[in-house]
């Protein structure tokens, strides 16, 4: 039962959020601002991702990258995981999924945190990483 709700509800929620972000521009429209940005005043690694999704959905790929390059990382991970799972399911191959290796999550977490630190340094070239 719970599984069924998830299977139908989750895509529904994600599609409606995407539709919302396609239409409304977080820059001009008062979208919920991240609590970390609001109260700690720093850019966390996810800062700018709403604006980036809005830009991406409207075809502004460069501007999406400027808001938050990590959304491309997210896209690549989704693509990689989906393709390797489907290849292994529908063919006789059993490719090893790099996401199952012990150090992958550690490297990914370190990368995300490092990105979060660097983008708060208000000096070139790091300031390029801040949402702009």
């Amino acid at each position, binding site marked *: 039962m719970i599984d069924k709700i998830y299977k139908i509800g989750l895509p529904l*929620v994600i599609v409606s*959020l995407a539709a919302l972000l396609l239409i409304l521009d977080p820059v001009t429209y*008062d979208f*919920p601002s991240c*609590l*970390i940005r609001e109260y700690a005043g720093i850019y*966390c*690694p*996810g800062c700018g*991702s*709403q604006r980036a*999704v809005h830009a991406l959905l409207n075809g502004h790929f460069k501007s999406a990258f400027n808001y*938050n390059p*990590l*959304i491309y*990382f*997210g896209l690549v*991970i*989704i693509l990689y*995981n989906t393709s390797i799972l489907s290849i292994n399911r529908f063919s006789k191959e059993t490719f090893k999924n790099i*996401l*199952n*290796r*012990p*150090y*992958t*999550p*550690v490297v*990914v*977490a370190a990368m*995300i*945190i490092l990105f*979060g630190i660097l983008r708060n340094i208000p000096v070139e070239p790091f300031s390029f990483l801040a949402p702009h």
Partner: protein
Amino acid sequence: MSDVRPKNWLVESILVTIFCCLPFGIAAIVNSANVNSRFDTGDIEGAKNASAAAGKWTKIGFFVGLVLMIVYFIFYAIVGVSLMNDMGGF
């Protein structure tokens, strides 16, 4: 080693970290690291526990983000409507 590798939630937890809530996302990623290393050393039970924990943090992150967004929109709708009323309506 015929056991099925438990879901490590890595993709989902990365997405939660990027799109929603850093602390919950990182907690989930740490647990997904545990899923991988424990399963590889043959600790199936431990891997299952880590998988459950990773899933828990991913879901908490997702729902916290969702609820915050909904609450914010309701709040904004109410404030917006009352502002319009103050200004004499349409």
